[in-house]
C-alpha cells in the first residue's frame, strides 16, 4: 500500500524538549480535545503528525476529532491479522461516516510470521512476542516518518495511565499527542451520543475495550473496561503504547519490571504464581506445583488453558513424565543457589523426556550458575538479583565456554573424544 509520505523527517524538535513539553502541557491543560489536536496539527507539528488507531470501541471519538481538524491527516491501523471481522468492518464504516481520506493498514512482516508464529498461536504462549511482531515491528518504520503521533489514550483506562498528559516527549524526540487524556468513560459515551457516532458492532455484546480477537474478552458490568484485554495475564499494555524504542513513553508511567529472561532479553511473563484460590479446572498461565497437579490430575488434564508445572527439589519428575507435554512451561525451583537438585531435574526433563517447551529456573538464580543451568537444559530464567540482571543484559556471564563432558545430545560432536569436548 502506498504510504502518504516517504521523506524521512529528522527527529528532534529541540524547542520541544523536556521543558517545552511541560510548557505545552501548561498551555493546553484546560483546553478541549479538539483544541489540543488542532494546535498540534497546525502549529506544533504541521505536516508532521499522524494518528494510530485501533478502530476499537472508543476509537470513533478520536477519529471524529481528526475529521474535524483535518480529514487528510494520516491514520494508521494495525492490521495484526488477529482482529475480529467486526473490527475490519468497522474500519470501513468509520472511514465512510467520518470522511477520513488517509487511512492506511499496516501489516506484519510475512516472513516474521512464518518464522515465529507459523501456527498463529503465539498469542497464547508468548503474547509479548506476538504483539512485538504484529504491532511494534510493523509500526516502527512508519514512526520514523513522523515527528509526532496522536493517540487515543486516556488517563482513566488503567492505573498506569493515571497521570497521562496531553503532550509527551518520547525518548527518540518524538511527540505524542493525547487529546483524550482527560476524557472519562462517561465523557466518551456522551461524546459518542452527542455526535451520533456509529458504535463498534461488538460494543453492544459487552466488549468494552477491543483489540485482537484472541486477546479480548467480555468485560463484566462495573469492571475496568480494559480488564477484558489479556485477561488472566500480567499484561496491561500493548507494545504500541510504549514509545518507539520500546521504553515507556512517559517517565511517570510506572510499568512493572520484567523478570523473565528468555531468548536474550527480559520479557513480560505471562505466568503468575499458583495461589490457594487457584482452581485446577479453570486456572491458566500458572505454574502448578507438582503435588497439586498429581492430586487433581484429571481436572488439570481437562483444563483447556495454557498451564505450567512447578517442580521443587525433592519432587520426582518421573511421576509426571507422561503428562509433561500438557504443559507449556516447566519451572524448576532453586530455593538456594547451592541446592543443585534442579540441575538433575532439568536434565531429566530436557534430555530423558525430550521436553521441548520452556524450562525455566526460578528462585535463587545468580549469574555464576547460569552457564551450568543452560547446559542442563534451561532456556528461561526468572531473575531478580540486580547484578545478575545487569550481567545478562550486558552479556558478560562468567562462563567457561568449553566443555569436557556431554550433558545434552545437542552437544555431541561426532568423532571427538568420548567424554566429548565441545567449544561453544
Amino acid at each position, binding site marked *: 500500500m502506498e504510504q502518504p509520505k516517504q521523506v524521512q523527517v529528522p527527529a528532534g524538535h529541540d524547542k520541544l524538549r523536556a521543558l517545552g513539553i511541560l510548557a505545552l502541557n501548561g498551555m493546553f491543560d484546560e483546553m478541549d480535545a479538539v483544541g489540543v489536536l488542532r494546535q498540534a496539527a497546525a502549529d506544533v507539528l504541521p505536516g508532521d503528525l499522524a494518528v494510530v488507531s485501533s478502530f476499537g470501541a472508543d476509537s470513533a471519538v478520536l477519529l471524529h476529532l481528526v475529521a474535524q481538524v483535518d480529514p487528510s491527516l494520516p491514520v494508521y491501523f494495525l492490521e495484526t491479522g488477529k482482529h475480529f471481522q467486526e473490527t475490519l468492518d468497522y474500519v470501513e464504516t468509520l472511514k465512510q461516516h467520518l470522511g477520513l481520506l488517509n487511512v492506511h493498514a499496516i501489516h506484519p512482516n510475512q516472513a516474521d510470521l512464518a518464522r515465529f508464529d507459523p501456527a498463529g498461536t503465539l498469542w497464547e504462549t508468548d503474547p509479548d512476542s506476538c504483539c512485538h511482531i504484529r504491532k511494534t515491528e510493523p509500526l516502527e518504520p512508519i514512526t520514523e516518518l513522523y515527528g509526532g503521533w496522536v493517540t487515543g489514550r486516556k488517563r482513566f483506562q488503567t492505573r498506569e495511565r493515571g497521570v497521562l498528559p496531553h503532550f509527551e516527549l518520547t525518548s527518540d524526540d518524538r511527540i505524542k499527542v493525547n487529546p483524550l487524556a482527560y476524557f472519562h468513560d462517561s465523557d466518551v459515551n456522551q461524546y459518542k451520543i452527542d455526535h451520533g457516532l456509529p458504535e463498534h458492532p461488538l460494543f453492544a455484546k459487552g466488549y468494552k475495550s477491543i483489540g485482537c480477537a484472541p486477546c479480548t474478552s467480555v468485560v463484566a458490568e462495573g469492571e475496568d473496561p480494559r480488564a477484558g484485554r489479556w485477561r488472566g495475564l500480567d499484561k496491561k499494555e500493548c507494545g504500541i503504547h510504549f514509545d518507539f524504542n520500546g521504553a515507556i513513553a512517559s517517565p511517570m508511567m510506572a510499568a512493572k519490571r520484567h523478570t523473565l529472561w528468555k531468548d536474550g532479553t527480559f520479557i513480560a511473563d505471562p505466568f503468575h504464581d499458583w495461589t490457594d484460590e487457584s482452581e485446577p479446572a479453570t486456572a491458566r498461565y500458572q505454574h502448578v506445583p507438582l503435588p497439586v497437579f498429581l492430586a487433581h490430575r484429571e481436572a488439570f488434564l481437562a483444563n483447556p488453558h495454557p498451564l505450567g508445572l512447578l517442580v521443587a527439589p525433592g519432587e520426582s519428575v518421573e511421576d509426571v513424565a507422561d503428562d509433561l507435554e500438557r504443559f507449556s512451561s516447566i519451572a524448576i525451583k532453586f530455593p538456594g543457589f547451592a541446592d543443585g537438585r534442579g540441575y538433575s531435574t532439568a536434565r531429566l526433563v530436557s534430555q530423558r523426556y525430550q521436553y521441548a517447551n520452556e524450562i525455566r529456573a526460578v528462585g535463587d538464580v545468580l549469574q555464576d550458575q547460569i552457564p551450568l543451568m543452560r547446559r542442563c537444559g534451561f532456556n528461561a530464567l526468572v531473575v531478580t538479583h540486580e547484578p545478575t540482571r545487569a550481567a545478562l543484559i550486558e552479556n558478560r556471564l562468567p562462563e567457561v565456554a568449553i566443555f*569436557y563432558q*556431554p550433558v545434552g545430545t545437542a552437544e555431541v560432536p561426532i568423532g571427538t573424544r*568420548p*567424554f566429548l569436548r565441545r*567449544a561453544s
Partner: protein
Amino acid sequence: MYRYDEFDAAFVAGRGAQFADQVNRRLSGELSEDQFRPLRLMNGLYLQLHAYMLRIAVPYGTLSSRQLRKLAHIARTYDRGYGHFTTRQNIQFNWPKLKDVPAILAELASVEMHSIQTSGNCIRNTTTDQFAGAAADEIIDPRPVAEIIRQWSSLHPEFTYLPRKFKIAMTGSPNDRAAIRFHDIGLQAAVNAAGETGWEVWVGGGLGRTPMIGKLINSFVPNEHLLAYLESIMRVYNRYGRRDNKYKARIKILVHEEGLETIKGQVEAEFAEIRGGILTLPSEEVDRITTYFAPPAFTDQAGSKVDVAYQSIIDPAYGRWLDNNLNAHREPGYASVTISLKPVGGAPGDATDVQMDVVADLAERYSFDELRVTHEQNLVLPHVAVADLRTVYDALVAAGLADGNAGMITDIICCPGLDFCALANARSIPIAQEITHKFAAPERQAEIGDLKIKISGCINACGHHHVGHIGILGVEKKGGELYQITLGGDASEQASVGKIIGPGFEADAVPDAIEKLVDTYIAKRHSVDETFIQAYRRLGEAPFKEALYGTA
C-alpha cells in the same frame, strides 16, 4: 604423563579468567562473602584461620619437574617459602593474598595445572596409587582412566552443587595403596571371566565424624561403561543425598540410611537408562589417552643390583633408606623411591621452595621427569635406576630429605590442625613433632617396623586418624585440648576403622602413651615379622588398654 592439548589449555585459561573476574567482583564488593564462598571453594580457595589457603590439584598425584619447579616458584614468590602436600595428593599454600590468586592461577596454567574443584561440594581430584605405572604388583595402570574421570568431572554442570564434597579414589593393583574403601567411590581394577578389564565399584566409604567402610555396589563395570555408571551414582546422590544437615550429607550416610540395596536399585535403574549412550568410552579413546602414560624408555639395567645388607653395615642411614623407601618396580633394575617429608621434628608434608627445586632436578635427571605425591604426604620418584640410587640419596641428604622412615612410626600423616585450620579443636602438627622426637632413633624405628600413626585436629579427620594403626584425634574438652587414641584402623584392602581405646590424654602425655602402646606390642608380638596391626588383630585391645590405663 598426560599433556594438555589445546582444548585443555583453553579450558584452564577460561576458568582462570572466570575466577579472576569473580575475585575482582569480590574485591569491589559486588559479591558478598556468602556468594563468593562457593565460587572460591570451587577454585580451591579457602579462608583459614590467618589467611586464605589455596589448594592446587595434582591430578592423581602426578607431577613433572617443570610443574614442581613452578610450585617452588609460587612458594617463594607468593607464599612464605614452603608448600604443604596433603593427604589428597594435592599441595596447598597457606599464605596467598586474595589479590594475587589470579596471578598464581595464571602461573599454574602455564605449566598445565589448576586448582579447579579442589574444594566445594563437587567431584574432587581423583586420587590413585602413588606407584601407578611403576609398581610390580599392578594389574592395570589406573592413570588413563583417572585422567578420563578428571575430564568428565571438570565443571560438570549437573554435579557442581552436590549435597557435599565427593571423592573418588582408584587403584590398579590388588594391594590398595589409595585407601579406596574410604572414599565416596572407590574403584579397584578387576578382570572378568572373559578376560576384559573393568572396575569393582565401592561406594559410601569415608572418614570424618562418621567413618564408614565402602560397600561393594558392583563387582564388575566394564571400562567402556564406567563413566555412565559413575554418572548414575552421581545423579542418585545429587537428587537424594541429604541436604538438611551438612554432617549427614555425604553419600556414605545416604547409603547407610537407605541401605545398599535401595541405592543399588536406583543406581542400576539410572544406569539402565544411560548405559550405552553418549558416555560410552570407545576403546580407541582409552588407548589414545593411555599412550600419554606409556612407560618411559627404560634401559637395560637388569645387571645392576644394590646389596642392602652390605650398605647397611658400611652406611646404616643409607641402608635404612634403601630398606624402607624403595618400592619394587615392574622393570628389572629400577625402583620407586619415596622421598620422606617427615623429618624428625618437622611438619608432616611440608616442603620448602629449595627442597622442591632439588626434587624437581632429581626427577628430571633420574626419574624420566616424573614425580608423584602420595596420600601419605610424601613424594615419590617413580622410576629410578638402581645404579643411580646412591647419587639420588646423596642429593637428598644435602637437601635434608633423606629420612629413611617411609612406612615407619615417624612417617606420620597429620592434618594442619589448630595452627592453620579454622575448624580445628586442637593442634596436630606439634603432636606429630613430639612423637617423632620420641622415636627419633633409627634403631628404635627399625625394631618397631611397619606402624602407621595418623593425626587429625578435629573430627573432620583430614589426618585419616580412623585408619591409622594408631590414630590420634584432637578434641576439645573444657576449653583445653585433649587427644583421643584409636587402635586398629587400616586403610588397605583389609580396611577397618580404628576403635577408641579409652579416655583422652593431654597433649604432653600423648608421646608417652604411644610409647606404652609400642612397648606392649613389642613385648607381645610373636616375632619381628608380626606387625603392629597383625598383633593388634590377634590380641585385641585388652593388653593395650591395660598398658594405658592399668587393670580395671
